[in-house]
């Protein structure tokens, strides 16, 4: 699942999460887009978010109401962009492989645990610095909270 499928380049003239969300997963068709908007978690395979450095790949998902992506693995820039925009990105191949359409997936990132239909899977918790960024809601809120935004 590459960045051009998550949010096509033609829409990068926007940084508004709501506007971006209307085009998230557009190349995959309307049915997939409808399901995205009805979900809070995206479950994916290997190398999720490979390709472009576009931060809007993460923002388009948060704009669509997605709170976490559980994947077999992530491309590195997408992973950074996810943390920096407050999107939980969990690398857990076992949980990703176990999940099916319609399953209930619960993520407790502080504890390092994903539940799929009641079965629990562990993942390595984030380093403390990354967790602090995520808890602040992203990199910029984190920076502002660190020193109150003083110059």
């Amino acid at each position, binding site marked *: 699942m590459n960045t*051009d499928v998550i949010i096509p*380049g033609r829409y990068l003239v926007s940084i508004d999460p709501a506007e971006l969300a209307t085009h998230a997963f557009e190349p995959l068709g309307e049915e997939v887009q409808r399901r995205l908007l009805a979900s809070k978690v995206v479950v994916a395979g290997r190398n999720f978010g490979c390709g*472009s*450095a*576009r*931060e809007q790949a*993460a923002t388009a998902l948060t704009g669509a109401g997605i709170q976490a992506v559980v994947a077999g693995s992530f491309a590195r820039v997408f992973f950074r962009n996810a943390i920096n925009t407050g999107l939980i990105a969990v690398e857990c191949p076992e949980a990703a492989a176990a999940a099916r359409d319609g399953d209930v997936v619960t993520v407790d990132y502080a504890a390092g645990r994903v539940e799929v239909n009641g079965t629990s899977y562990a993942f390595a918790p984030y380093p403390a610095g990354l967790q602090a960024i995520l808890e602040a809601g992203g990199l*910029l809120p984190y920076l502002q909270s660190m020193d109150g*935004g003083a110059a």
Partner: protein
Amino acid sequence: MSAPRTFAQKVLERTSGSSGLKPGDIVDAYPDLYMSHVASWRCIKTLEKMPGRTLYAPDRIAMVMDHLSPAQSSRTAAHHQLCRAFAQEHGIEKFWDVNAGIAHLVLMENGHILPGNLIIGTDSHSTIYGALGAFGTGVGFSEITATWVTGKLWMKVPESIKIVVDGPLPAGVYPKDVMLRLIGQLGADGGTYCSLEFHGAWAEGLSISERSTLCNLSMEMGAKNAVVPTDKVTEAYLSERGIAADAYDPSLPDPDAEYRETVEIDGRQLVPQVACPHTVDNVQPIDAVAGTELDQVFIGSCANAKYDDLAEAASILKGRTIDSRVRLIVTPGSRQILTRAVNDGIIATLLDAGALITNPGCGACAGDGGVMADGERTLSTANRNFRGRMGSYDAEIFLASPATAAASALTGRITDPREFVRSGERVEAAV
């Protein structure tokens, strides 16, 4: 005596003021340059949300208007306008407007990239800076904005992979083919989070332009950065731009540094390679796809629109005419490249063959002009063939070398360039 270190360890130790770093360690690093291209306006808008903040180092900010350039909509024009005003207000001297070309090539040509530098950019192909011995890596625009004000960002020390290619390559086979082969072999995540180092006599014999194709395409394996260690070729390139060897620290990897693995590729038997739709690691030898009908051929992008790429294409197209069924779009990588290609007749050769020459920049690679209708196919010299990247979601992109592109433009079908390249003939390489 300290333990032997890779290139990545040395650069991240220097820029974070630490020592003894191991892969997996997380540091706060202070990059030497922060590049933002089309994303610059997003950085400025983000900065506006942090009132009272000042810039840590305006001389480390580089902005290049390369995508969506010149502006095709009033929305894009307003973005460019915002960037110009910001550069003026804050004294950003490394501001390059719509006439300059692709950010990566412009910064390299103009001496803004030095060996051993740590460079972050709002573009995944920032790995290209390893062609000049620098550590280049892509980040999102919020991180660039954060670095504008703090001067630093968190980085994980990567593991390193050593890549050794046995040369020379046969006539009609190029660094692009080597990289496509490597990506096909290792996969789109084969180098994720890793620092790729190109070692050995073959890489040492390449020009900076050819090295930039290696480091650029390394991103398509997920690499964090890629590098050809600084040597006489790097020094000569910089010396031509008035930069002496004592102006930088090349951070050469130690001979006995630790690598996750060593990948060896036999280039001597390699044939031209083609990445097929819709992933860059879907790579086939040219025989498997030769004859596929095309609607468009694109020679452009930060991967393969340098001077020698245009010259290689021109050497095949000289005195010939492209097939009437295809459109050939040539987008030189930068104004310097275009100027040189105009002055020595390469552009005239391409025009005579039937090519459309566009302004320097990212162009069709980013779906910026030269897009496709439903059901169409393009063979491109770019670095990415994702669905919908060049127009319709129902169109296909194949990736190959400039020589394969030129040969295919002549026939209207994917064509083996070795039919057109005379043995032993090699275009003088330069950016």
